[in-house]
């Protein structure tokens, strides 16, 4: 239940502005890939093109190919709705649906597109997903309470439970810990390690220690200056990126000399 992603010659635009230029990258199935780089370098923008979420922003479009096990996401006739049900996303700030209970939040994606689910199946899926997100023990007694009553870290894990409940092939995470305290961050990082056994995980992070802790491979993005497009500078095993990078800019960045 996980697929690889191959990106070929991808340019990302907002209207006429070229935001990310010429990215080529292969993301292995059942691995954790981290995107690092300074603010504004286009790593989040690029991440959003992997499940066509950047199209939500007016003027967002791409040139090039993104292949999910060989199927191009951007081929004419491909419905972004289908793409997103296969490639889930966890956002920077926890965003459970405020009007729904914890249980309904987990089931929100499952009930989409007119799908029906029996009560007992729903209950077991809720438990499985919440256990999968290491949240079950904390919320099992208040599944009917609103999700917005949880702490930030719990809310983020609820969002992860909601994402894995639809059984996606890939999970994209856009700085999932940047709004969380260190303990909650640790819980999410442990979770990412567990998710790897079932899903392909791609994570954008500002925290280089986090990239080093959780990822198998790391991609470093950089930008030449304001108004210039972001580029993929180097992509290699995480150990290589952090100990022996081949590009000077990567070394400067991971050693904290700029950025």
């Amino acid at each position: 239940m996980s697929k690889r992603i191959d990106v070929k010659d991808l340019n990302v635009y907002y209207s006429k502005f070229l935001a990310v230029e010429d990215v080529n990258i292969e993301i292995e199935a059942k691995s954790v890939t981290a995107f690092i780089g300074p603010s504004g370098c286009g790593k989040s923008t690029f991440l959003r093109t992997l499940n066509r979420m950047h199209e939500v922003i007016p003027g967002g479009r791409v040139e090039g190919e993104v292949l999910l096990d060989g199927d191009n996401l951007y081929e004419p006739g491909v419905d972004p709705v289908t793409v997103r049900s296969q490639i889930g996303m966890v956002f920077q700030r926890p965003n459970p649906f405020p009007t729904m209970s914890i249980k309904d939040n987990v089931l929100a994606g499952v009930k989409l597109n007119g799908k029906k689910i029996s009560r007992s199946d729903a209950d077991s899926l809720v438990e499985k997903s919440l256990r999968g997100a290491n949240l079950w023990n904390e919320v099992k007694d208040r599944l009917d309470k609103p999700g917005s009553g949880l702490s930030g870290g719990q809310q983020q894990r609820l969002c992860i439970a909601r994402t894995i409940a639809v059984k996606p092939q890939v999970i994209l995470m856009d700085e999932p810990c940047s709004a969380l305290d260190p303990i909650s961050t640790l819980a999410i990082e442990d979770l990412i390690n567990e998710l790897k056994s079932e899903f392909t995980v791609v994570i954008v992070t500002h925290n280089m220690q986090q990239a080093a802790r959780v990822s198998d491979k790391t991609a470093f993005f950089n930008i030449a200056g304001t108004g210039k497009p972001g580029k993929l500078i180097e992509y290699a095993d995480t150990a290589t990126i952090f100990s022996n990078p081949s590009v000077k800019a990567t070394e400067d960045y991971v050693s904290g000399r700029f950025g």
Partner: protein
Amino acid sequence: MTTNALRRNGSKGQAGDKVFSGAALGAGILILATLLAVAIFLFIQALPTFTADPTLITGGEGFASYIFPIVIGTVIAAAIALLIATPVGIAVALFISHYAPRRLAAGLGYVIDLLAAIPSVIYGAWGYLVLAPALVPTFQWLAANLGFIPIFAGPASQTGKTILTAGIVLAVMVLPIITSLSREIFLQTPKLHEEAALALGATRWEMITMSVLPFARPGIVSAVMLGLGRALGETMAVALVLSTGGLIPSLIKSGNQTIAAEIALNFPEAFGLRLAELIAAGLVLFVITLVVNLIARAIIARHKEFSGAN
């Protein structure tokens, strides 16, 4: 003696703070005082109606049997208006906020706002001259085919000046209120919640039902209540469009009357007890509006836990 350096002694900032809080408090009290004054005025002026001999009241059977038919008429007209204007208004607002291309949305929003600025007498004239005659064939069809339902019982009005026509005119008047308020609320839906739905694989409509509508619910209720306020109180349009009469269940025959139109039509010639009667009718309208608003508040408050405010 020691002095605490952290204590401030009357700086300018503090004075400004006091002035502003005083002004805000004053404004708040003014609103309550006005509302209270209106209520007291209505009550005192209406009092003779309640103490008078029932046979002297219009209709000769006391105030209750005088006011009951026009209360029902008012409620029917407002209900028709909201039944039409609420779904249409929400749909138009959603179209502007989430479906229309940006340019079209801006233009359309502007036109809708303009609709709200048209004086009600114009709507009344339009209803009288254009809508009522145009509706006659429809009414006749309704009477012929659905006449077994009491609200469509025939024979249909030949002029089209019925409570249904009045309700439709009111709907057109209420529509811009519901639309522009709903649109504002829809546009305020946090991007975060919309993206949460989309990232799960929701279609645009599913995204709207999952994040936009739940977020906007209290706002929609307020918008509908404001619209209801206008529909209940609207005088000119109803007075022009409706050919009045006693309370009848059929919506496509002449008949029925609303409180606001009743007051407006009879006020110029009223004096003494008749004047008190009309003011008492106004008091009843005031109470209806108040009750409706309280119910709306209760509806909003019931879902507080899930409102996302916590």
